[in-house]
């Protein structure tokens, strides 16, 4: 068994390596492997990096022959994600433990304080008792809250302040003050000899608990990416030396021949070499019907092989597959910034130091002008303000919603490039739609054939003639004949008459096919067929006259049929408040016929490709917020020019690159889905930002004691800690609500249950 050569460097995880001697042994063992240009062992990481064209398995064998173990480092996104989840889970448990221990000390202390009211230090016995409690609290602070203190210190050294800074200052101040009361009570007036150890412990416990809940809630925000990752199987069946072997997907290389059996997922992108099967591509394209695949057809990683066994050649592996690119794009978009968050960003940049200043000012006010016990009030106010301020809620407000919103989009076949596109999609008032391929199928089809004689015979004759033509409409006629299993005949004397039509002899008969001008030129009276032709043109079809041996035989009409679901989608878009304008290179009559059927009021016909961009620009100059939907191939400049470009192209590479929003499903409904989703996401972001602003602008003054004249009480630092801990959980939970978003029109019902 030998792996195919790889041009890049490979990394292996080593087992049993402990000293510099091992390093030499392994490196020299690899020196003998063919294709190894350079091999280096990193003793610290216990990894081996091999450069050159050597096969992975050969390197592993060489390491094993030297007496050590090695395995290829597989940095697949899926594995990374699983690892991440494990980390997350252990972090979650750790936080819960810390919360439990801290609350285990804090709650009894608080209950003691509430029940007995004995939190003062007035005798040497109390000094000793509280002193020991203080030491236990210190242990709790170090064990359960040590990371807040180290984090605060490191941030401080870098001239930055984080949430850790606030927590460390708040709890630290409370502890130091309490310790001061215990050690030198005589420094303070009797009324201020009060300890706050319970506050330190409770705050640390509550914040750890809040963070634990936040970790859990955050895990759910990336559910969409996880679903995509699950489309990737861990292993693939490769043909090696005539045998089929299962190997991890990471070891696949371009050029490998793979076997996919019924019910299995296609592991990488490639093309069919042998076999025939139906492949379900709904997860990537939204196309509900399985697609038939045979020799030469392209296969996409993540799609499901339904009924046949396929042998195919890998063409794109690893990060190059379309699935990986989609995942990467979703991840990038999930973490991109939304312009609306700029204010929150500005505020959060100066937030923590500002809060520290406010806390000191408030404390001084209470010390100088407040009622007795001044020192105790000063401390409570200082601690509460520091603890209640929550930069997290502010900072999390936007990213969490974007994360969920973008992921939800991916689940519905809407790939949003970034947060900016998401925000701009909410404000669109005009949607410019390219007709061909977006509103219509993009491939003309034979719609009508009328004759006094035998329809099939006429079709056979016309198709034979048109098989020589290169006109796009000719294809529609030829394929219609093929569908009816009509065999085409030889054509002699074929002639294409520019702007008129075609002529030639089929089976000894002279056939003419073209417009009225052709008939006039040949002196044939089109008679009653003229009316029929006009009626067909009125429906947006292109009608052509056919003559056999100098006499009218009938008419044939070709049209680019309107996509099935376009009508409903247009209505939906109108209901969303969008004005729809149609762009097309077709003539005005055809374009207007289509527009009439769909209820589109504005039509721009007879356009050259470069005009589309100009029209988008003109609309923008008129103050419109323009979205543009096209197939992404000839519309790239217009898509780029529009405020939001929607590429409807089943995720072609060009579209993914040029559009702000890529719709994997070839349907205009995707645009409506995207607009609805973006509006829902923006609404969610606004709720979060509003909540976070209100929380902080109300919370900080309350902690500073503005309600004291009314309530006669200061906010307890413990309450402040609880509020702070749960404010960020609230933000994340609100963002998670977006997971229940559903587009107003469910295509799943329409296409026979995609999910």
């Amino acid at each position, binding site marked *: 068994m030998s792996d195919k050569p790889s041009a890049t460097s490979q990394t292996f995880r080593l087992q049993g390596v402990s000293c510099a001697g091992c390093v030499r042994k392994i490196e020299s063992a690899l020196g003998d492997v063919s294709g190894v240009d350079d091999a280096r062992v990193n003793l610290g990481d216990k990894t081996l990096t091999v450069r050159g064209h050597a096969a992975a398995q050969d390197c592993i064998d060489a390491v094993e022959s030297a007496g050590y173990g090695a395995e290829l480092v597989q940095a697949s996104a899926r594995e990374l994600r699983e*690892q991440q989840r494990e980390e997350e889970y252990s972090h979650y448990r750790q936080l819960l433990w810390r919360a439990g221990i801290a609350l285990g000390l804090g709650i009894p202390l608080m209950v003691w304080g509430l029940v007995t009211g004995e939190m003062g230090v007035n005798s040497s016995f109390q000094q000793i008792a509280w002193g020991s409690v203080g030491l236990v609290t210190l242990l709790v602070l170090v064990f359960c809250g040590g990371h807040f203190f180290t984090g605060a210190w490191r*941030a401080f050294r870098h*001239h*930055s302040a984080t949430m850790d800074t606030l927590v460390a200052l708040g709890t630290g101040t409370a502890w130091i003050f309490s310790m001061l009361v215990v050690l030198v009570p005589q420094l303070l007036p009797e009324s201020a000899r009060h300890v706050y150890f319970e506050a330190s412990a409770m705050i640390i416990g509550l914040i750890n608990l809040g963070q634990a809940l936040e*970790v859990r809630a955050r895990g759910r925000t990336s559910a969409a990416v996880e679903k995509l990752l699950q489309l990737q199987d861990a292993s693939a069946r490769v043909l090696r030396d005539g045998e089929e072997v299962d190997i991890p997907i990471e070891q696949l290389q371009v050029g490998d021949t793979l076997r996919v059996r019924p019910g299995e997922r296609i592991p990488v992108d490639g093309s069919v070499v042998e076999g025939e099967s139906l492949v379900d591509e709904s997860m990537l394209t939204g196309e509900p019907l399985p697609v038939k695949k045979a020799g030469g057809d392209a296969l996409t990683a993540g799609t499901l092989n339904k009924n046949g066994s396929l042998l195919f050649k890998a063409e794109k592996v690893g990060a190059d597959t379309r699935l990986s690119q989609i995942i990467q794009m979703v991840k990038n978009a999930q973490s991109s910034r939304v312009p609306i968050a700029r204010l929150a960003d500005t505020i959060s*940049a*100066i937030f923590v*130091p500002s809060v520290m200043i406010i806390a000191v000012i408030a404390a001084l006010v209470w010390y100088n002008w407040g009622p007795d016990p001044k020192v105790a009030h000063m401390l409570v106010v200082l601690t509460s303000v520091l603890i209640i301020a929550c930069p997290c809620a502010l900072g999390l407000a936007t990213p969490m919603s974007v994360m969920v919103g973008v992921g939800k989009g991916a689940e519905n076949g809407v790939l949003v490039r970034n947060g900016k596109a998401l925000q701009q999609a909410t404000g669109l008032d005009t949607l410019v739609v390219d007709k061909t391929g977006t509103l219509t199928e993009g491939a003309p089809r034979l719609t009508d054939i009328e004759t006094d004689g035998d329809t099939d015979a006429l079709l056979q004759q016309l198709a034979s003639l048109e098989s020589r033509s290169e006109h796009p409409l000719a294809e529609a006629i030829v394929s219609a004949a093929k569908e009816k299993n009509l065999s085409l005949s030889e054509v002699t004397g074929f002639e294409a008459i520019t702007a008129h039509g075609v002529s030639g002899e089929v089976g000894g008969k002279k056939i003419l096919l073209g417009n009225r001008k052709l008939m006039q030129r040949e002196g044939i009276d089109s008679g009653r067929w003229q009316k029929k032709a006009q009626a067909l043109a009125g429906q947006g079809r292109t009608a052509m006259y056919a003559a056999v041996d100098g006499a009218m035989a009938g008419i044939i009409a070709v049209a680019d049929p309107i996509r099935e679901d376009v009508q409903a989608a247009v209505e939906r878009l109108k209901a969303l408040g969008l004005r729809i304008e149609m762009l097309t290179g077709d003539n005005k009559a055809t374009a207007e016929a289509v527009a009439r059927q769909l209820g589109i009021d504005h039509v721009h016909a007879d356009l050259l490709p470069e005009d589309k961009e100009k029209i988008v620009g003109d609309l923008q100059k008129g103050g419109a917020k323009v979205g543009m939907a096209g197939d992404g191939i000839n519309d790239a400049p217009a898509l780029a020019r529009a405020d939001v470009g929607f590429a409807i192209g089943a995720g072609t590479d060009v579209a993914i690159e040029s559009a702000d929003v890529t719709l994997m499903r070839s349907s205009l409904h995707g645009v409506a889905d995207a607009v609805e989703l973006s509006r829902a996401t923006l609404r969610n972001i606004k709720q979060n930002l509003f909540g976070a602003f209100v929380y902080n602008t109300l919370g900080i003054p309350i902690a500073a004691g503005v309600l004291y004249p009314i309530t006669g009480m200061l906010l307890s630092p413990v309450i402040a800690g609880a509020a702070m801990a749960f404010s960020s959980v609230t933000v994340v939970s609100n963002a998670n609500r977006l997971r229940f978003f559903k587009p107003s029109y469910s295509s799943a019902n329409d296409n026979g249950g995609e999910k």
Partner: protein
Amino acid sequence: MASLFINLLGVAAIALTVWWFWLAPKGSKQQIVGADEKLEILVKDGVYEPDRIRIAAGEEMVLHFRREDASPCAEWVLFPDLEVSAQLGVDQITEVTIPAANVGEYPFHCQMQMYRGTLVVE
């Protein structure tokens, strides 16, 4: 006497906060570290270390982030102006490819902008 002391202490604390967090970072240019293949950016306890990184203009560059902080805050690193972002694995090195960029300063940070750094393109 005690009252004067406490007030002075408070004013000093405010002055120190303003100076340390807002004025000092701008006044003194911190050390800029040039990025090369070996440079590891440590993500730990709320800071990137180093947090000012120099790269050459017009060239693609790969930065190596080593995240040693399990807290969710450290999970992502974003370069908003460059439209680059990456999810960082805990206790491992994540490669982040920075596309060729024009001369300038590009901030990078975590989702909540608590972790902050600057990419200096020269």
